[in-house]
């Protein structure tokens, strides 16, 4: 029997949703401040003031109408998280749409969800003339989404409470770095801010060395860092990373993308002196092997066509797109059409596989993730050992993830379940794309990119694509970023409201 949610459930959900909306409203003061003080852009600032006012009205109404002191249970926590991301998409899209650079509110919502989910697919028009204020917001939503919208609220706007962990898990972060979840959230912010300072400085210096004016180099540095570390893939100019025509810039972004793909727990251990963890950790070992294998496939595909003159050029182009795909960033140093016209199927299959796998768990990447892949391989090894060894032999499989962990069926089942869910999501989008008349391999490429929150495009994503496909990609980005559980819970609650007793 399905139980109908009680009115009290909606009150609690509304209250915490209101708090998160207020948090989002406050985050919009960053572009307002930058727009007034640094960029002196009056009209774009107005777009943000309107969005802030709408968010504050909605947040105030919800927190007052649903005022409660009750704490969240699992169901409520998951629903708050899934709804928060939808609300964030709508609110984040308001200033974008008001700028006039998006053809419709749906397009603005698409880019907003793409930003919050750290995907990087874009429908913006004439990006090269977009205001600095709006451009900063595009990159800031990547940063907020990468850290986790709820983590932002947890860290700054919600005092410690036991329900925090439920929302933290709902955002696909199931690892506690520190015993207290608020301290964990703050550590994630601390790591990100330190890297923000270092990464921005490195990119700004590289930009100035490339001939960009200091103020512009700093702006590009901040934006590119936020997009690379949070594995988002937005860039301030329409040519993405190709705009800079710079090897140092590409090398720095590769380093930042890889750092963004690390587990925050691994960051913590590296920072506290446990440097051996980087070579022992199952995620790092799996990531290294995966990159090697997939680069071999991609590189082999590229050599067949002879598009690139010489191995050094082939390595530079192939490796950059592969790292960008594997870390889920989506930065490109080639045009989308070149994927279709100048890369053969084998090279594209290598990139699709890299996109579908992603980076480490508890990082800013999306997709299946290295921990699950590692666990599945360990389970496979265990089964092979069982077959080979005598029946009476006791087979025990362990893996190293910060500490030695015995492999349990429960972990394997969960890893398989989420992996299957991702594959289903990839195929769903690919079939949908094919139904709209796109070639299957291109549809699979774009669908995997959206679901795994990567952002590489082979050209399907543009403002002229069917609206239904835009909705499908928005759903894929949302489901892929939250790793299904909170989405399943939200669907379950809808079913319970209709069918429950």
């Amino acid at each position, binding site marked *: 029997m399905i139980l109908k949610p009680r009115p009290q459930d909606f009150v609690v959900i509304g209250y915490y949703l209101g708090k998160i909306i207020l948090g989002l409203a406050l985050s919009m003061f960053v572009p307002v401040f930058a727009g007034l003080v640094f960029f*002196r*852009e*009056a*009209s774009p600032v*107005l*777009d943000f*003031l*309107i969005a802030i*006012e*709408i968010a*504050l*009205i909605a947040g*105030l*109404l919800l927190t*007052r109408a649903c005022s409660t002191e009750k704490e969240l249970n699992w169901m409520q926590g998951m629903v708050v998280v899934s709804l928060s991301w939808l609300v964030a998409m709508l609110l984040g899209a308001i200033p974008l749409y*008001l700028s006039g650079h998006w053809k419709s509110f749906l397009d603005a919502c698409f880019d907003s969800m793409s930003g919050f989910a750290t995907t990087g697919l874009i429908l913006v028009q*004439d990006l*090269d*003339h*977009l*205001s*600095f204020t709006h451009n900063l917001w595009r990159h800031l939503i990547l940063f907020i989404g990468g850290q986790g919208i709820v983590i932002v609220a947890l860290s700054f706007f919600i005092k410690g409470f036991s329900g925090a962990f439920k929302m933290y898990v709902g955002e696909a972060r199931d690892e506690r770095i520190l015993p207290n979840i608020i301290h964990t959230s703050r550590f994630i912010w601390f790591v990100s801010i330190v890297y923000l300072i270092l990464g921005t400085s490195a990119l700004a210096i590289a930009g100035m060395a*490339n*001939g*960009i*004016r200091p103020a*512009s180099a700093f702006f590009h540095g901040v934006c590119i860092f936020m997009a690379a570390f949070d594995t988002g893939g937005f860039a301030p*100019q*329409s*040519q993405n990373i*190709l*705009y*800079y*025509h710079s*090897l140092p810039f*590409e090398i720095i972004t590769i380093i930042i993308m890889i750092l963004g793909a690390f587990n925050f727990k691994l960051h913590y251990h590296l920072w506290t002196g446990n440097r051996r963890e980087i070579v022992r950790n199952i995620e790092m070992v799996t990531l290294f092997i995966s990159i090697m294998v997939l680069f071999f496939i991609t590189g082999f595909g590229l050599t067949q066509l002879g*598009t*690139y*003159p*010489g191995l*050094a*050029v*082939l390595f*530079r*182009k192939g490796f950059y797109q592969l790292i960008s795909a594997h870390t889920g960033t989506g930065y490109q*140093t*080639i*045009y989308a*059409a*070149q994927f279709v*016209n*100048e890369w053969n199927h084998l090279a594209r299959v290598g990139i699709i596989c890299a996109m579908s796998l992603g980076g480490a768990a508890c990082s800013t990447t999306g997709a299946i993730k290295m921990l699950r892949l590692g666990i599945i391989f360990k389970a496979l090894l265990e089964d092979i050992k069982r077959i080979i060894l005598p029946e009476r032999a006791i087979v025990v499989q362990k893996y190293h993830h910060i500490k030695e962990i015995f492999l349990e069926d429960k972990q394997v089942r969960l890893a398989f379940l989420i992996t299957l869910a991702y594959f289903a999501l990839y195929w769903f989008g690919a079939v949908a794309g094919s139904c709209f008349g796109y070639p299957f391999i291109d549809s699979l490429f774009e669908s995997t990119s959206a679901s795994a929150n990567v952002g590489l495009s082979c050209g399907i994503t543009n403002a002229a694509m069917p609206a239904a496909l835009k909705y499908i990609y928005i759903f894929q980005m949302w489901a892929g970023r939250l790793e299904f559980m909170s989405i399943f819970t939200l669907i379950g609650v809808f079913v319970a409201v209709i069918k429950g007793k």
Partner: protein
Amino acid sequence: MRNLFNVKCVMFNVILLYTLHFTHYTAFAQPVSARELIENAQAYDGKTIAYAGEVIGDIMRRGNFAWINVTDGEKAIGVWLEGHLLKQADLLAGSYRSTGDLIEVIGVFHRACPEHGGDLDIHAFEIEKIAPGRHNPEASSFNTGKRNAAVVLLGALGLIWILAQLKFK
């Protein structure tokens, strides 16, 4: 003598046509769009082309050379040119605050430039300013409609806040 002259003319024309058609570099008088270049990169690879568009973003000087990015309104392509060409043209680059100079570039197109790490680019040997850019005065002004909407919403927000405070008390 006249016949000999005609034979020479025909031979010259044949050689010229052969050179234009079969050699590595082919001249295109009409500007080619960015989409055409990107989607048919192999066909234009290594050929001399004309490309027109607006200069956008930063003008990046690299020693005696420079990179500029030129958009035709749909896609932007990087153009590599010598510093003296840049100096002659004295370019204004487009951004939110300005519309950049509209230029025409004559140069060699590369689908994967060996000199620049495989980038799709144009090595220009001639640029011409077709129309000058201009600053955008709207960048620093308020939009009246948006200003009114912001004031109305501010009023609504204030009202809701006061009512919420009263209810709370």
